[in-house]
């Protein structure tokens, strides 16, 4: 084209980024790769597969499908390297992580171009977003490694971490996984996605250049089968980012194994536009929400909710903006939307829109479409919440839309989903924005922005979007464990049918406590509670699944507790302590008799102290303003999990119950407590204390019965946010398996309940979700 001709059209013209250096890097290793195990890049294995460029279909390289022996070698290498790596201390680890960051930065362009070839994302995104964020993640975590020993003195590395990352942000997700693991003193075996393993293999080069000790980072390539081997390998933690379906499989596979688990899964994140928003900016935000990375983003703002009064105008503007998007060669610097990662994914997207789109109106951007693995930016308006495409994750450049009338309705629609990863809201009214943000079921909320990420800010979801956070101190915490004393063993009395005499006096009927009322068991059965000498101590109701149902329902109704002030919750906890103290001798006697010990007075006193502790904490477990590189606030808010089901310890019948109840309700949760199976009468006495202490109905519910029967019901209940198992470790598997359906959090914890580990921040963390609320500002 001549200059004169271009003057007529004023087109952009091509602006290609050269792929030559990246191709040369691949050629230099002969175009075929093995794994990275024990510091060595292994030879190509017996079974290989193609790594292709989705934009062109060309084969980029041969990768090796790992077999069991590869995975075993990698895990062994990591195991062998771990003690020394942790033993290096924070400062030495920080130096290595810092070196990795520097080296990645030096090779930033090579990483960017390689990522584009492998994944199909536009060079602009790889160059300006993926790679800089990955580098930043290592810098930030060099800092956490440096500070960890001083700032988290009671935590240490978990051990060997198996990490499985997806294909949408190959290097960035690798960074999110490896940086915190290494900072905390863990070693890792990472499996990149089979579509996109090349930057992970380049990262292996970086590890070598940085002189990272052998075995600290290991990388094995291959498909989901390799992932399965890794999940089943003798590792101490699995960290997974990917689909909800696979996350669920991993939850089941690791159930009862004692492996720590964090899952960052799918989403159908709402993007709410209020009528007082800067509409043009909200539309530009949508470009970054749903057309970023071809919409293949777990936290993509894929569900547009627009206030009815501006919806028509908004949609018109949006369509005009869509027509301006440039779809094409991902290596062109002026391309907005690149190639879908693989023809399989393209087919999935196409099929979903073809099948579900007719429930609304489908608008494809009027843009020049290249041949090949591309899907046009798409908007589907007029969908009702019931439409399948409003509910299911498409994982492509497809935005679905509906309207709302009021802020409350916006919140209801936003939360009308199984997922809870991210949410975006646009409004110029700070009252409205800060009113709505805490109500959204999501781990991340962006106000007047979208898809902002930073190493200092936690990222992760609630509900079926998974659990655990990546980034910030909370992210590091997920790669650590506490050293805690082994719990004491408990003597549980065996029933002796021969000895049926009662305690005498007027019969006291221990009931359950549901919704602020003493209730009889649904099944109509009671169980005998015996003293260690076999004597009958009394009866408690034999709880069943319907009692759990009723208790959870009562707990759900008491949602107002979550928004009471910390001060009010503290007052009530103090009042509980006060009223317990009044009846202290009675409780002490009861405990002594039930457990045939003389620890009753100590246990009551410890319980009162613990109630005081959490009353104190109720208004002091502060969130944080994160140090993100942005003119704005990134607030890490501590929000209650919701309804927590807790299986109280067998031993310490009162203190164990308080140890679960107090931190949970101090943070604004409601609880369903299954008291000590052996010694439940301390709990049933305790509800009388609750009744006299202004605890609102439904905030605390007590269901007595057999823990092994009640636990899976709690774990499977969709309205329960988390299950704490403080009793029999044999129930862990049952609970974790049952939790997989809804991917709720679980916490297995045992300790000496009167010891230092029996209370503190680890309980508060379990009782809260960190929600990161981003609020950029400026006039």
């Amino acid at each position, binding site marked *: *084209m*001549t*200059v*004169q001709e*271009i*003057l007529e*059209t*004023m*087109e*952009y*013209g*091509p*602006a290609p980024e050269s792929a030559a250096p990246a191709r040369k890097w691949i050629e230099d290793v002969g175009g075929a790769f093995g794994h990275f195990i024990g510091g060595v890049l292994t030879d190509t294995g017996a079974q290989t597969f193609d790594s292709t460029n989705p934009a062109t279909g060309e084969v980029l390289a041969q990768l090796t499908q790992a077999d069991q022996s590869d995975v075993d070698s990698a895990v062994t290498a990591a195991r062998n390297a771990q003690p020394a790596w942790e033993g290096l201390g924070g400062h030495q680890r920080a130096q290595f992580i810092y070196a990795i960051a520097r080296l990645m930065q030096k090779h930033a362009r090579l990483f960017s171009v390689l990522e584009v070839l492998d994944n199909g994302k536009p060079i*602009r995104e790889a*160059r*300006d977003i993926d790679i800089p964020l990955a580098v930043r993640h290592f810098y930030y975590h060099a800092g956490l490694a440096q500070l960890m020993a001083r700032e988290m003195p009671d935590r240490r590395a978990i051990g060997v971490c198996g990490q499985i990352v997806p294909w949408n942000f190959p290097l960035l997700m690798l960074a999110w996984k490896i940086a915190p693991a290494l900072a905390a003193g863990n070693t890792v075996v990472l499996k990149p996605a089979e579509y996109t393993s090349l930057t992970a293999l380049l990262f292996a080069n970086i590890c070598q250049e940085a002189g990272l000790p052998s075995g600290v980072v290991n990388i094995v390539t291959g498909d989901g089968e390799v992932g399965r081997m890794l999940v089943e390998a003798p590792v101490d933690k699995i960290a997974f980012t990917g689909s909800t379906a696979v996350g669920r499989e991993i939850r089941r596979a690791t159930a009862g194994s004692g492996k720590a688990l964090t899952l960052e899964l799918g989403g159908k994140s709402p993007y709410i536009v209020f009528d*007082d*928003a*800067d*509409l*043009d*900016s*909200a539309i*530009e*935000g949508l470009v970054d929400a749903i057309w970023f990375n071809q919409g293949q983003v777990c936290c993509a703002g894929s569900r547009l909710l627009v206030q009815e009064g501006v919806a028509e105008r908004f949609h018109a503007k949006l369509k005009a903006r869509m027509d*301006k998007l440039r779809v094409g060669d991902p290596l062109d*610097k*002026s391309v*907005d939307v690149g190639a879908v990662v693989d023809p399989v994914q393209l087919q999935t997207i196409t099929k979903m829109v073809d099948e579900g789109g007719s429930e609304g109106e489908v608008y494809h951007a009027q843009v020049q479409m290249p041949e090949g693995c591309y899907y046009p930016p798409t908007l589907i308006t007029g969908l009702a919440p019931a439409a399948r495409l409003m509910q299911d994750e498409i994982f492509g450049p497809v935005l679905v839309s509906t309207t709302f009338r009021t802020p409350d309705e916006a919140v209801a629609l936003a939360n009308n989903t199984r997922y809870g990863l991210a949410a975006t809201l*646009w409004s*110029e009214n700070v009252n409205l924005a800060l009113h709505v943000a805490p109500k959204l079921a999501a781990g991340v909320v962006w106000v*007047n*922005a979208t898809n902002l990420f930073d190493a200092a800010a936690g990222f992760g979801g609630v509900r079926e979007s998974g659990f655990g956070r990546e980034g910030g101190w909370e992210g590091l915490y997920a790669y650590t464990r506490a050293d805690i004393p082994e719990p004491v063993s408990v003597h549980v009395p065996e029933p002796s049918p021969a000895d049926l005499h009662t305690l005498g006096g007027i019969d006291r009927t221990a009931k359950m406590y549901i919704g602020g009322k003493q209730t009889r068991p649904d099944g109509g059965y009671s169980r005998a509670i015996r003293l260690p000498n076999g004597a009958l101590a009394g009866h408690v109701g034999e709880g069943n699944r319907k009692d759990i149902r009723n208790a959870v329902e009562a707990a759900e109704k008491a949602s107002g507790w979550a928004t009471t002030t910390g001060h009010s919750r503290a007052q009530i906890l103090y009042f509980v302590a006060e009223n317990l103290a009044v009846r202290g001798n009675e409780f002490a006697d009861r405990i002594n008799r039930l457990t045939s010990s003389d620890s009753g007075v100590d246990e009551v006193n410890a319980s009162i102290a613990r109630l005081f502790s959490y009353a104190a904490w109720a208004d002091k477990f502060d969130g944080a303003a994160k140090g993100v590189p942005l*003119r*704005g606030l990134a607030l890490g808010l501590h929000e209650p999990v919701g309804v927590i089901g807790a299986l109280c310890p067998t031993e310490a019948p009162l203190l164990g119950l308080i140890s679960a109840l107090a931190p949970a309700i101090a943070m604004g949760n409601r609880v369903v407590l299954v008291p000590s199976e052996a010694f439940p009468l301390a709990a049933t006495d305790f509800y009388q204390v609750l009744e006299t202490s202004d605890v609102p109905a439904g905030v605390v519910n007590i269901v007595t019965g057999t823990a092994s029967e009640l636990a899976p019901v709690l774990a499977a209940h969709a309205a329960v946010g988390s299950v704490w198992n403080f009793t029999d470790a044999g129930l862990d598997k049952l609970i974790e398996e049952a939790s997989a359906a809804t991917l709720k959090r679980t916490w297995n914890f045992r300790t000496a309940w009167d010891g230092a580990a029996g209370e503190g921040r680890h309980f508060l963390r379990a009782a809260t979700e960190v929600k990161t609320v981003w609020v*950029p*500002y*400026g*006039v």
Partner: protein
Amino acid sequence: MESDITGAPAEMASEWKQGGTAGLPQVSDTRNPGQPLDLDWVMSVQANRSAIERRCATLPGRRSVKKEWQAAWLVQAIRCIDLTTLSGDDTEGRVRRLCAKARQPLRSDLAEALGVSGITTGAICVYHDMVAAAVDALRESGIPVAAVSTGFPAGLSPYHLRVAEIGESVAAGAKEIDIVISRRHVLTGNWRALFDEMAEFRRACGAAHVKAILATGELGELRNVARASLVCMMAGADFIKTSTGKEAVNATLPVTLVMLRAIREYHERTGYRVGYKPAGGISKAKDALTYLALVKEELGDRWLQPDLFRFGASSLLGDIERQLEHHVTGAYSTSWRHPMA
């Protein structure tokens, strides 16, 4: 595009239409006749600074123009320059030199190598006292003379004198009048006063085109920029312009984005295209490309022509000349290889 905006003062509309496109060969659209002040619309406008800044910060990474395309875009940038001198020490001689540069902004061998001819700047922009000299120097070039007016740059001289100044400049041959608005009307939210002032300035311009300088660096917040833009367009501005070049902060990309969006909204609702002129602080060829890309993205190709887009700049041309020579020769250039103004 011929339809009247219902409710616009009839005599105003017809007078402005009479102005038409006379004297401005590159103008092909119907002039914006203005419309009654619509305060609901004005007050509904929002401008979220952080989002706007993100858009502007990422744009250069999203749009890249290379090789022949870059050369063409830089030639187009020259065609959109209001080559400007607004100094206390301006003389007729200085203005004549500037006009000569406006007639031939590109060294002839470079123009030839690029395969373009007849390239001139968009206009010459001077103070009133230099208008006559400029008009004389530009005779038969087709290049219009723009005069800054209405007590430029502060706009705080007696109101009747400000209005009269427009008439004087038009009489002296200025085809474009760059007026300054009263910033205090914006800062105190007196939109009616701003509208009335702008409408009167427009009337005083007659057939000459009027550019409304908002002095955005003195308006305090981006939302004010958006609102002032709308009010000036409603009152009949042909162009809206960022700055006098004399404020502490002049043209910026965020301010540009706000004003472009206001222009787009105005076009969507009324059908009339209003032009845009960033002024002050744009001195690099690379910046010019970013501005053009932003205009192309937000408003479309139609606005990339000099009848709807101008750079108010004095030193930008020099950098563009150097970049174009680099394009032609492959070697980096320097200022003394290009004729000065």
